[in-house]
């Protein structure tokens, strides 16, 4: 590595590849790509030490558009590809880019296992609640009743909720953001990059061709303050244009309350992203529009042992205990005999 390149501070533009970006005009993916490049520059990422791995789908074209190493792999398997890579090369910064179909349908199994192993990598799930690349079938996150080409009478599969699944798999970092909320998105991606362990980020992302406006409730200037809730560690759950609404626990269940009228901030639920028990994070992941404002930000950020460290630790431990493997010794161990 030349000293010059090592000393150069990279800008977001340095992370752009020479490939034309071919998402539909107006696709939410553009914003995610832009924030990602900012975050990479911001965290001082080194291009050659960064790897993006994706599956199949619109989001999964992502690796072609960043000037890092990358694999555009096969449907749903990016977490497994990343596991092999990260296990062998713990020094690399590894990002998995996936979508709601890729990650939760065909790749649901791998997502679950990647999260529970807690390798130090970032899984970014673009959720537009539709199959875009295959032109508009419903996805695992499409709401019940969703009318699409493959569900002319409405979807009858109960939708999956990515954050609830991640928390169910004991994810150590779980967050959500929105494609057009660029400051927030940058913050969340930054936090994900800094987390040691698997970070799982869901990004509400608009598909203006096949599912336009799926997240209008959360992006509309008029309503978003009342329909989303920005989480902050240690702070009470307050939301609303006038910051006069909050979430309180009623028994085991959350309820929306208005501040004043005998209810103060101290009565509200306080966010604790470091809670060792994932119950609060799970509760937050189940707060859904229109009954509740949908939480954005970091739901959970805890520290736990990482798979690649434990595996490589076992290799190091075995070498220490038994010495570096000696083939001649192995071959000649046990019962042998000599023919003269």
């Amino acid at each position, binding site marked *: *590595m*030349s000293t*010059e*390149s090592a000393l150069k501070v990279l800008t977001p533009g340095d992370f752009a*590849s020479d*490939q034309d970006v071919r998402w539909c005009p107006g696709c939410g993916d553009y914003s995610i790509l832009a924030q990602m490049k900012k975050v990479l520059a911001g965290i001082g990422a080194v*291009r*050659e030490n960064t*790897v993006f*791995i994706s599956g*199949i789908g619109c989001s999964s074209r992502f*690796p*072609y558009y960043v*000037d890092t*190493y*990358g*694999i*555009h*792999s*096969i449907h749903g*398997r990016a977490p*497994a*590809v*990343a*596991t*092999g*890579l*990260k*296990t*062998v*090369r713990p*020094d*690399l910064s590894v990002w998995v880019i996936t979508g709601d179909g890729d990650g939760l349908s065909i790749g649901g*199994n*791998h997502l*679950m*296992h990647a999260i529970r192993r807690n390798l130090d990598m970032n899984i970014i799930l673009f959720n537009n609640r539709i199959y875009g690349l295959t032109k508009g079938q419903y996805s695992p996150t499409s709401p019940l009743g969703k009318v699409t080409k493959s569900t002319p009478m409405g979807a009858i599969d109960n939708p999956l909720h990515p954050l609830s699944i991640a928390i169910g798999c004991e994810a150590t970092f779980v967050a959500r953001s929105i494609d057009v909320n660029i400051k927030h998105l940058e913050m969340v991606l930054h936090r994900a990059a800094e987390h040691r362990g698997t970070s799982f980020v869901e990004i509400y992302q608009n598909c203006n061709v096949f599912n336009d406006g799926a997240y209008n409730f959360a992006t509309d200037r008029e309503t978003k303050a009342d329909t989303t809730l920005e989480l902050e560690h240690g702070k009470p759950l307050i939301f609303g244009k006038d910051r006069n609404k909050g979430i309180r626990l009623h028994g085991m269940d959350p309820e929306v309350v208005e501040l004043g009228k005998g209810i103060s901030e101290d009565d509200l639920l306080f966010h604790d992203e470091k809670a060792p028990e994932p119950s609060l994070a799970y509760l937050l992941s189940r707060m859904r529009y229109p009954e509740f404002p949908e939480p954005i930000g970091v739901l959970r950020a805890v520290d736990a042992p990482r798979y690649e460290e434990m*595996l*490589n630790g*076992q*290799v190091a*431990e*075995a*070498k220490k*205990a038994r*010495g*570096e*493997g000696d*083939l*001649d010794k*192995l*071959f*000649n161990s*046990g*019962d*042998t*005999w*000599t*023919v*003269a």
Partner: protein
Amino acid sequence: MASTTTSVETHKPIIEVHSATVRFCGDSGDGMQLAGTQMTNTSALIGNDIATFPDFPAEIRAPRGTKAGVSGFQIHFADTEIFTPGDRVDALVAMNPAALVTNLADLIPGGILIVNKDAFDEKSLKLAGYSGSPLEDGTLKAFQLFSVEMTRLTRLAVEGLGLSVKEADRCRNFYAMGLAFWLYDRPLDTTLRYIDAKFGKRPDVAEANRRALHAGYNYGETVEAFASQFRVNPAKLTPGKYRNITGNEATAWGLLAASKRSDCDLFYGTYPITPASDILHELAKHKNFGVRTFQAEDEIAAITSVIGAAFAGAMSVTGSSGPGIALKGEGIGLGVMTELPMLVINVQRGGPSTGLPTKTEQADLLQAVCGRNGECPAPVIAARSPADCFDVVLEAWRIAVRYMTPVFILTDGYIANGSEPWRIPEVDSLPSITVTHPGPITNGDKYLPYQRDERLSRPWAVPGTAGLQHRIGGLEKQDITGNVSYDPLNHEHMVHLRANKVAGIANDIPLQEVDGPEKGKLLVIGWGGTYGALATAVRKARAAGGAVAHCHLRYLNPMPRNLGEILKSYDKVLVPELNLGQLRLLLQGTYGVETVGLNKVQGKPFTVGEVEDKIKELLA
């Protein structure tokens, strides 16, 4: 072939024979695999050539005493070089009626039949489908029947050790071993050492097994029933130091050796499946060799983790059996498309679908050669015997890194579980495998991930190397730049490039050798685990005057350059396979030659006799 001499050490005469085949069979909980393995190790250590055939049910514990639960282990030991575990058995040890009824057909007329008399009760006889006891109705008169009260005698032998009846009965296999060891004049010390090592933490159990082993041995020596012992002298093998090895062990050790000789850490990503799992078990023991073993959540994660590890620069390997390889198909396609080196080991078993998990077959040849979408060429090489697995793995990895491609290794349940003596190589004498990764580009030049060398192989650039950032994936790539391309002519060009790259490997592999005359009436051609039966049958036929040659393929894709010429040098070509004619199809398609098939799909290997008969028929 036998000569009688009187031994000074024992009371009974010892008959020297050139070879013997013994089979232990019993319930799947009776420890028959252990009995067979012990006799194998001892026979190997006294210098016999050996070949073994473990045969066990897929059910972990089928109901006791049923035919479904019968487990067997056959061992053939000889004072000459041998290639198979033997067609028929000279001595059969049957622990219960179900084992007797399912194995008796393989015992030679006049052969020694040792049964555990105590297990021939009414219930067990009924389970085995007997209406009366075969021990008493004269139906076994064609054999030398020794009906031994093994259960009672074992219990007596271990009396006073405080063992429960169940624990005492578990020592019966050592009693049976002791008797078989006496019969074939095998020393007990290897097994006594094994007992010390294995049961060291349970001194009472260790002592019980020792006593049972001696009791069985002394029974043979003392009881007047047995008129003589047999002896098989050491074989004249190539000088060197030997050990006994199974195919799966040899595969695992081959992987360790290839990793060492290419200075490339091994990553083994796999999902458990019979009969491939023992490769994982063996590798997992040797983490001090820098091996990372990854037990993935499924077969698809296994192969894709291997792709990630290959991209990272590791020696990446997955192992499975047919059904698992089927699941891996799409991932292997990605491996071919991304042109990353990796090994895919298929320990074949009976199929299709779940098929016969513990039984052997070689019906995944076309799956390996053709079983993916698109024009998706991958080299395929096959091991022919347990020890050969070691060499095949080294060769496969050499090809994988030299040509940047996934390489299939075919073994099968028969050679994976079977064992033979392995001449221990000097590690320094093993071929060294050169792996090169391009260095950093610092002058701003663009890295071209699909620029090829004279072998049409692309560079293996690994993350972390400055200036070589590039993206690979399943979409078709533009030649040289590696950019995504839908250009029709580029796709056709790339399809040809990948095909030519793999076809070119033919220039880098040895010419096919033929055992026997260069021209003649008949060529027997085979591949994989049928080697032993074919080689033995052809040599026997030639000894009887037949103009028969044998050629056994290691390289199945591409095939050796001279194979077409060889095939045309004989009047007839016989292709014996444990499938319905998959190699025949490839030979017909590649060389347009007429061939005759000998096909068997019974979950069992060929016997020498079956192949001999077919050869005789074709020579007639």
